[in-house]
């Protein structure tokens, strides 16, 4: 990969992923590896600026009616796909309809009634109910645009042999399990204003290597052929940082890990028991033990950086920090007693024992171990089972657990986080992701309302209310927020790539800021 050097214009930048994408059809997927491979190829109507506000991108401007049930969006003119076809309202409509039909993230269209191409470069969206977050959603790569002609011509091969967008990189080739090759779109000039470089990117080719084995990836990044990667394992971050050849940036991510507590199973159906658990947990210790220090404690499910997240001070105040005595008191009061610290508490001859599942991967298995320890200190007997994910989901859906380690990818938007983890619609035994089996009309109502609340401040208040509600009820115990790592060789200049963590997507580099200078 280390080819000719020079002025930086004919360089290759080699990125690395830890698993091969399944498809590069943007409307077929929402997994991280695929998204990472697609973001540089496809542009969207909006992007998120450093203040986390939506900014038009392939759109020029937009209007919405008062209750936010109708959007009229003007499109950029003169944009061409990599295959030379034109980007216009028809193509955009076709793409968005295709996304609504196929995408796993189609829910982001909310109650969309229809899309009208009201002009050559104008789209009108009609919703049944208010959809205030629509522009934010439109910033996701799944809402991007592919050349209709290319999609139709390639048929099933689209996303495998062919990927055609409008973005700064042009898809060239995909060698399975090996690498994906892109070339620079020389004509690109639509980078958002907040970027230092809004023209073509600084290198000639972009390669994404697939390196599944973490150790190998570490070696590749430090001394091998990979120039940079966001896939470095937490345990390797320090090594990268310490290595002479490499640099490492850390950025907090909104992506939370937490414990889901089954509110239906004994004894965790008692709120006191759940609260005692929350008091027993020491988030800092988990960060150290399970994340190699590469994470940050969270006290609400939605960390402060998420849209609608609760600020830390409030969260800590309303919520829980480790306080073993309070935990013990709570349990004592609830009738769960023991003679000595560390012993298992009993009530009417029943042990205070909970079944605790953890995923078989790091950091979850370690979270399990550490938490088990913490719970036992206040008199729980936590029967930890470390399970492979398929088995774990099966058993959790069967409600066999009291406690399970969980994480949520994304998590940037509080509404989503709060809905998917605790809304009764998502009740796990029915196949949803509410693994706390939490069913509260009150909570559901707040979330539903927040979803359609047009006013930003109002909405935020509702979201905060929801978070405080769950801090009281404790169907989950927030644990740790992940940290993103940007690792790169020293010869890569990456000055601005973390300035705006959501550009071009929360999971991606700011490739525009990358400069390769191997001289």
């Amino acid at each position: 990969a280390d080819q000719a050097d020079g002025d930086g214009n004919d360089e290759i930048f080699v990125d690395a992923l830890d698993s091969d994408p399944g498809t590069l059809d943007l409307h077929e997927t929402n997994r991280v590896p695929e998204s990472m491979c697609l973001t540089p190829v496809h542009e969207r109507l909006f992007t998120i600026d450093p203040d986390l506000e939506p900014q038009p991108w392939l759109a020029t401007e937009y209007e919405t009616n008062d209750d936010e049930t109708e959007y009229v969006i003007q499109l950029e003119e003169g944009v061409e796909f990599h295959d030379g076809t034109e980007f216009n309202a028809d193509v955009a409509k076709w793409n968005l309809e295709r996304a609504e039909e196929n995408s796993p993230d189609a829910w982001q269209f909310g109650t969309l009634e229809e899309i009208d191409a009201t002009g050559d470069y104008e789209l009108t969206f009609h919703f049944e109910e208010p959809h205030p977050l629509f522009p934010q959603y439109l910033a996701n790569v799944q809402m991007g645009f592919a050349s209709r002609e290319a999609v139709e011509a390639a048929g099933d091969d689209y996303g495998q042999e062919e990927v055609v967008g409008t973005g700064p990189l042009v898809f060239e080739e995909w060698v399975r399990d090996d690498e994906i090759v892109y070339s620079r779109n020389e004509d690109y000039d639509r980078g958002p204003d907040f970027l230092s470089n809004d023209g073509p990117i600084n290198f000639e080719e972009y390669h994404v290597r697939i390196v599944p084995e973490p150790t190998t990836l570490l070696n590749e990044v430090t001394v091998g052929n990979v120039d940079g990667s966001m896939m470095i394992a937490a345990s390797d971050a320090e090594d990268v940082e310490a290595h002479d050849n490499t640099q490492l940036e850390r950025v907090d991510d909104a992506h939370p890990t937490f414990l889901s507590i089954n509110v239906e199973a004994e004894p965790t159906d008692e709120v006191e028991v759940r609260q005692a658990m929350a008091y027993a947990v020491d988030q800092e210790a988990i960060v150290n033990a399970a994340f190699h220090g590469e994470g940050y404690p969270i006290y609400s499910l939605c960390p402060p950086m998420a849209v609608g997240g609760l600020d830390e001070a409030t969260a800590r105040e309303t919520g829980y920090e480790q306080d073993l005595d309070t935990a013990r008191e709570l349990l004592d009061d609830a009738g769960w007693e023991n003679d000595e610290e560390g012993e298992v508490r009993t009530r009417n001859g029943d042990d205070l024992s909970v079944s605790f599942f953890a995923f078989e991967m790091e950091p979850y298995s370690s979270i399990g171990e550490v938490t088990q320890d913490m719970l036992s200190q206040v008199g729980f007997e936590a029967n930890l089972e470390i399970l492979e994910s398929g088995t774990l989901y099966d058993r959790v859906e069967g409600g066999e657990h009291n406690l399970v380690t969980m994480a949520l990818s994304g998590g940037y938007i509080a509404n989503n986080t709060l809905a998917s983890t605790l809304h009764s619609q998502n009740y796990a035994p029915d196949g949803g992701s509410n693994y706390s089996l939490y069913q509260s009309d009150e909570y559901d109502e707040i979330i539903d309302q927040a979803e359609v609340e047009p006013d930003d401040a109002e909405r935020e208040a509702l979201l905060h209310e929801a978070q405080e509600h769950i801090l009281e009820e404790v169907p989950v115990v927030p644990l740790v927020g992940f940290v993103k790592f940007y690792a790169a060789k020293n010869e890569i200049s990456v000055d601005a790539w973390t300035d705006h963590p959501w550009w071009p997507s929360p999971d991606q580099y700011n490739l525009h800021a990358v400069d390769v200078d191997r001289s």
Partner: protein
Amino acid sequence: MLAYTVRRALQMIPVMLGVTIVISSIVYAAPGNPARLALGDGASPEAVAQLEQEMGLDQPAHIRYFDWMAGVLQGDLGTSIQSGRAVTTLIIERLGPTLELALVAMALTVIIAIPLGVISAVRQYSWVDNTSMFFAIFWLSMPSFWLGLILIYLFAVRWQFFPVSGREGVIFTFTWWSFILLPAIATGTRRAGLLTRLMRSSMLEILNEDYIRTARGKGIGSKAVIYTHGMKNALIPVVTLIGLQVPLIFSGTVIIEVVFSWPGMGRLLVDAVLQRDYPVVQGTILVYSVIVMVANFGVDIAYTYLDPRIDYS
């Protein structure tokens, strides 16, 4: 001869059928819901049910098997649940690198092991013998993935003689060699250890045969005895031994492909197993089995040419 070849080929059919049944049974018996895994978190139960239906997961096992077999007979191994692509295509894309790796590993194994085994046997108890036996046992005992990690660490990270991982370059070019060498060594070393020992003992056995004594009694020099009388006979078991190595080498590539990011079938299989991508698991194992069967077939046929005692007519 031809009759034997045909018979031997026909014999593969029931075995092949058996293999498909074994593979399918394992796959169908496995717990976990691939539809769920494919859809990811937050998928609605309806969507899961629908996908299950699309994938035929709601059908009884034997129906699924017959459907699958019907496809297999037409070269269609089904569709990947995760990527939605044809399993046949997925495998074809990765077959090449796996074969490359296996063949190079095999070649290395044979090139190292056979001469070493012969020399060790001929100079039994000499320092050559002792040293090569020491190393044979040493290599034999090393987990290949661990060896792989160590090789990467030493030769790619520490001394940087070779690239760390991946596969690049056109076959047989310098670049290609630089990429394939470490994984091939990691795959082949254990096998080489084994083969050296097997070669040595089979050569020793031959050197103790009466006809070697006869040859020595003719007053032929000892080198000529070994090469004209020993080698031809030693080659016969060697073919078997090499044949026995084939499935082992292919087994070995699976884990090495993961360690070295080699874009082959092993990675496809490992990923598919973890993601419960049934059709891919079924297809990959089937292809591995076909390779093994074809290799064994080749060995049997080669045998008939090598060993005049075998008369298959």
